[in-house]
């Protein structure tokens, strides 16, 4: 397929541009140096007059010439093999890069194209619900309410997909500022009080210090905390508690979100941070929240763990470096 080959060649060039050193250039230099060796031997023999007419005509001359020829052939064969290997590796790298780019473009376009029709549906349903088109019965309002919550779920899904795509494509701009993790968490706890109150869930704040600083992006870290709190509240039955604990630990700050929820079976914990993984399909969610949280934490060179006991609850532990300079790359 000429078109595919052309794309691969362009991608090969792009892959080459990303490499610090041009492998072909280095290969050529190495082999040029190696080819010089037989010539040097030949000149050595010539300069020292070891290569007289008698020697050249005799058996020794024949053996030397054959050795010279064979060594050059050998070099050429090894050179061709290495060049073929390089070409194959670069083509595979180019194909991988191309398919990654196609996937990213696809996700971004689809998500973007979904937002316009979603906006149309949302505003028109709102207009009907608000009675702007005509009188609406309570029964009709209930159904419209269901449509509205479905739209909200789709919106979260599209936004989640876009966030994940941006993080995985490495196009997220992370602004690193000195942040007080306790302050950010405090704000998020306030936001969740109403939601928790509806289920009579108590959010307990256990901050060892009111100023626990990390270097990070406020929006992204807030999103990670929101995801943990929202999961905690979602999976905790009525009258339960969700505790947010923050404390320093050597060069790190640890944030723990502990709930008294249903807990996660041991065999499911490994899948928890996978995309679209919903352990409890009856609960509303996109299955992207924890995948995004993990990406955000890793973006800050931190780690996230889970400890859980079925029937007792779960503990999500987020470990963030206090100062990125102390973390080895």
């Amino acid at each position, binding site marked *: 397929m000429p078109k595919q080959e052309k794309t691969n060649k362009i991608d090969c060039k792009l892959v080459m541009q990303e490499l610090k050193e041009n492998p072909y250039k280095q290969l050529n230099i190495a082999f040029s140096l190696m080819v010089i060796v037989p010539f040097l031997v030949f000149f050595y023999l010539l300069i020292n007059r070891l290569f007289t007419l008698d020697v050249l005509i005799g058996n020794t001359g024949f053996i030397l010439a054959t050795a010279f020829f064979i060594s050059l052939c050998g070099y050429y064969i090894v050179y061709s093999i290495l060049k073929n290997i390089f070409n194959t590796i670069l083509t595979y790298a180019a194909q991988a890069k191309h398919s990654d780019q196609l996937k990213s473009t696809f996700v971004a376009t689809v998500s973007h194209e979904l937002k316009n029709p979603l*906006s149309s549906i949302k505003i*028109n349903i*709102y*207009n009907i619900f608000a009675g702007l088109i005509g009188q609406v019965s309570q029964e009709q309002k209930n159904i419209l309410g269901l449509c509205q919550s479905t739209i909200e779920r789709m919106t979260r899904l599209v936004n989640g997909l876009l966030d994940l795509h941006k993080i995985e494509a490495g196009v997220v701009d992370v602004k690193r500022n000195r942040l007080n993790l306790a302050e950010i968490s405090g704000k998020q706890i306030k936001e969740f009080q109403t939601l928790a109150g509806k289920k009579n869930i108590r959010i307990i704040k256990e901050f060892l210090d009111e100023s626990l600083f990390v270097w990070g992006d406020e929006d992204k870290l807030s999103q990670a905390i929101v995801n943990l709190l929202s999961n905690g509240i979602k999976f905790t039955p009525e009258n339960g508690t969700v505790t947010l604990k923050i404390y320093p630990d050597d060069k790190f700050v640890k944030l723990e979100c502990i709930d008294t929820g249903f807990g996660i079976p041991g065999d499911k914990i490994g899948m928890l941070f996978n995309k679209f993984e919903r352990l409890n399909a009856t609960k509303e969610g996109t299955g992207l929240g924890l995948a995004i949280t993990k990406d955000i934490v890793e973006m800050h060179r931190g780690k996230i763990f889970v400890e859980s006991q079925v029937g007792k609850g779960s503990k999500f532990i987020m470990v963030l470096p206090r100062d990125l300079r102390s973390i080895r790359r």
Partner: protein
Amino acid sequence: MQEKIVKKILIVEDEKELMLGLATLLKSQGYLIIAANDSLFGISLAHKEKPDLIILDLGLPAGGGFYVLENLKNSVGTFDIPVLILTAQQGLDLEERAKQMGVVAYFHKPFDPEILLSQIKEIFNDSN
């Protein structure tokens, strides 16, 4: 008796269904609505009608939202009309660029109609 001045809003949006929904919503609040479905028509309506507010989409045919914005902000007759952006396009750089160009509010689609309404009311209160 003082006559109530009806505020005129120009919607520049190429998604027909969204434009109709927005028009219904804003009409219900007593605003006068005019609409354009591409950049050039939007610019010409803004110059002709001199609305009190422009609701502008960024992904528009015939130039795009930033082209409209640049034209409006560089024209004597339209530079002071407040512009509110509604967009499905993502990117902090877009929002920053729009705000640097004098946009008063920036909404990501799909937006909350109630928040949009309160923002519009706030814009009109500020301009009064």
